[in-house]
Every structure is written in C-alpha cells, then in structure tokens.
C-alpha cells in the first residue's frame, strides 16, 4: 500500500480519546482500515481533510497527551501509517509488507524490543477483510486477490517451516448441550448463546492448564503469551477468511464470550475490524461443523504454535460404564507445532478440553 484516502473522521478537535479508540477510517487499495490511536489524550488538530488521499506516513492529526501542555508538538496519529522512520521493522518484513500491501504502522512487533518481523507482517496481512462496499462496487478480483495472496504466503510458510503434529479426540457434548439448552431457555433469542461459545471458552480454559500452546514461535524459540486471545476463524461471504481475536478469552464469562463473538463476526463480515483485533490472536479455533465436516486438520497460523479444529456434532452410539447410549459427539483436533510442544502436552490439552466441556457450569 502506497497511499490511503481518508474516508471519514470520527472525532473532532477537542475530543478526548483513549488508547485503542478508533478516530478515522482510511480506504486502502485492499480494504477500509479503522485507525486507532495508541495514546490517550485530546485531539488538537485534524490535519488531513476528509476525502483527501495521502501517502503512507502522512500525519493525520495531532493529539495532546494527558498532562501535556496545550502547545505540545503535534503527535502523529498515523494515517495508514506512522512516519516510516519511527517504525522498527526488519528489512525482510518491510519488503514483505510492501509486497503484501501491509501497513507496518498498524502492526505490533513481537521481536526483540518490539521489532516487527516477517511473521508479524504475514499475520497482519492475511486477515485483512475486503469491505462489503468494496465488494459491491468492484466484484473484480482485486480485493480478494490481496487477501488470497496473503493467506497463501502465511500458509505456505506454515507448511514449509512448522513441523505439525495432529491429535484428535472425540468429546461427548451431552452435558454441554444439556446445560446450554437450560441456559438458553431462560433467555430471549437476542441473548442466546451458541455452542461455539462454549467450545471457545473451553479451549481458553484448557490453555490455562497447558500454556505452552498459547505461544508464538519467534527467533527460533517459543515465546509464551501472557494473554489468552483466542482467534476465531471467520469465513467471509465473498471468500477468504479472517481471524479476529477475542481478547482475554479465559477471563470472560460465557455471555461475554458470545457477545465478543457476535461483535467480531458481525464486524468481520462488514469490514470493520480494528488492526489490533486482527493481530493479537495467540491460538486459532476453527469450526467447520456447520458444513458437515467431521474432523478438521488445520494449518497453524504463524507465529502461533497451535490450532484447534472442531467438526460436526453427530449423534452416535457411545459406550460409558458398560452401557451403550446415543450421545452428541464432536471431534476436536489439535494441530500443534512440534518445535514448541510434544504430543504428550498436546494430549494433556485435549484431555483438559474434554474435561472442561463435561463441566460447562464452570466455564
């Protein structure tokens, strides 16, 4: 991406903003991007006008930090990018960013001292969703090809560099679905929870027991991540997929997890995700059960070290304590990076996942 057009200001001078707020929408050649601020303060001046097309690196606005005097020097909020000189990125990541049309200023580096690395660029590039208006206006291949290209780059690298191992277990969802039925019976349709929320929450809970799977592989070593941000694979109707993160999934209630899913999926499909939501996943969960798939063998999204796949819930004969019954069974598959973990830990993760789903009231 060389330039961006400022589509809309969402703030005006004098408005107070806090870190993470969206202040503007910029149209790039691939999608609309919601521009966030990275410090709290007061908007002093809007430098770029709506409708204006500016090169990457242009300062869009000035913001006065909290406690700073009014005459403080303008602080770049960054249009589609902060000034290039301020970006701490490796040469190969810069090259890749140019090739994939990724704005380095929207990426949080995971390298030493926050250096943006190739993996950060690939991770940020693949999820960028083409916006609905872009699709409606230009059903040609361009908006999709960028995403497809980025997915191809990340997945090719994954298969090239990550020694995957796969483990599968079958989980009896009788308890979870029974609990969910009672839970939903008390709620209006607008507040009902899907079983997917339980599965995601159970993954987060299992990660607290096997934290090695909640990590990035960077600089030839695993780097455990403090926050558990489960990324959910969301397919887009126009093709491709994005993986927005549910931040701190382990600390959320079932209702909060469902609400986060609802919010992220809705915005993913309308092209309104924030850059940070596309870059923060620490593990990916993909669920293809809706399409009738029984077992998922996923490809890990680098630099993550694990992906959990769920298939279709199928009623089948199930033996327990010597008795045969019909139970709703789902296949859960772990794809894990063998550099970061061994099958033993992977198996413990699946056991913890199963256990969590047998105790849905504790999720």
């Amino acid at each position: 991406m060389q330039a961006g057009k400022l589509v809309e200001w969402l703030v005006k001078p004098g408005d107070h903003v806090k870190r993470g707020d969206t202040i503007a929408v910029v149209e790039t050649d691939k999608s609309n991007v919601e521009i966030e601020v990275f410090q709290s303060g007061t908007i002093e001046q809007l430098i770029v006008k709506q409708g204006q097309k500016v090169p990457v690196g242009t300062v869009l606005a000035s913001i006065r930090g909290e406690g700073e005097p009014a005459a403080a020097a303008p602080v770049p909020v960054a249009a589609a990018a902060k000034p290039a000189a301020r970006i701490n990125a490796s040469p190969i990541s810069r090259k890749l960013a140019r090739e994939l049309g990724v704005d380095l200023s929207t990426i949080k580096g995971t390298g030493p001292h926050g250096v943006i690395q190739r993996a950060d660029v690939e991770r940020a590039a693949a999820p960028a969703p083409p916006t609905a208006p872009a699709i409606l206006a230009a059903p040609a291949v361009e908006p999709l090809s960028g995403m497809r290209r980025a997915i191809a780059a990340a997945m090719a690298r994954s298969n090239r560099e990550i020694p995957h191992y796969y483990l599968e277990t079958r989980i009896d969802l009788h308890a979870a679905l029974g609990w969910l039925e009672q839970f939903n019976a008390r709620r209006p349709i607008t507040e009902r929870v899907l079983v997917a929320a339980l599965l995601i929450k159970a993954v987060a809970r299992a990660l607290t027991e096997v934290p090695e799977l909640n990590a990035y592989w960077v600089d030839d070593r695993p780097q455990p991540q403090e926050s558990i941000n489960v990324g959910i694979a969301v397919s887009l109707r126009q093709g491709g997929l994005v993986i927005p993160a549910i931040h701190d999934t382990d600390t959320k209630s079932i209702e909060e997890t469902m609400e986060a899913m609802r919010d992220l999926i809705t915005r993913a499909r309308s092209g309104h995700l924030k850059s940070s939501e596309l870059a923060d996943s620490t593990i990916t969960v993909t669920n293809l059960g809706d399409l009738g798939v029984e077992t998922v063998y996923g490809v890990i999204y680098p630099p993550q070290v694990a992906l959990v796949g769920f298939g279709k819930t199928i009623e089948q004969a199930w033996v327990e304590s010597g008795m045969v019954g019909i139970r709703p069974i789902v296949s859960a598959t772990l794809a894990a990076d063998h550099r970061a973990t061994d099958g033993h830990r992977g198996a413990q993760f699946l056991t913890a996942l199963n256990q969590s789903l047998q105790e849905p009231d504790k999720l």
Partner: protein
Amino acid sequence: MTEDQIRAAIFEVLRKIAPEADAKSLSPDDDLRQALDIDSFDFLNFLVGVHEKLSVDIPEQDYGKLRTLSSIIDYLSARVA
C-alpha cells in the same frame, strides 16, 4: 398476515444476511442453510431478524423445524399475529 407477506419478511431478513444470494430463487424445499451457505451464527441472526420483524417467539428447541422455506413459512404462519 398473509403467506406472501411472511415470505417477503423472510426475504428481507435474508437480504441483510446473505446480500449476494438470490433468496427468491430458493425452492420451497431447499435446505435454507445449505442453499444460501448460512452458518450457525448467521442462522441465529436470521431467527433474531424474523423474531424482530414478526414478533414471533422461536424457542431453541424449534430451530430444527426451520430448515426449508416452506417449513419456516408454515411455522411462522401458525404463530404470527
């Protein structure tokens, strides 16, 4: 409310969920989710949309009855005011 009005309301909700799909080309017995590639999240959104448009309560245990256009119209016709 007539059957045509219910069908129109259904199509209106579907247009928001699957704007690129031609809902009117649906056969009465097509599986709605398969034909329009609607996942469980969007199916819930569809039911919420229908609920809000027609003020019909749809208990979760009835979701399985709402597979085809004709079964949805039948279901709603029996409950709509």
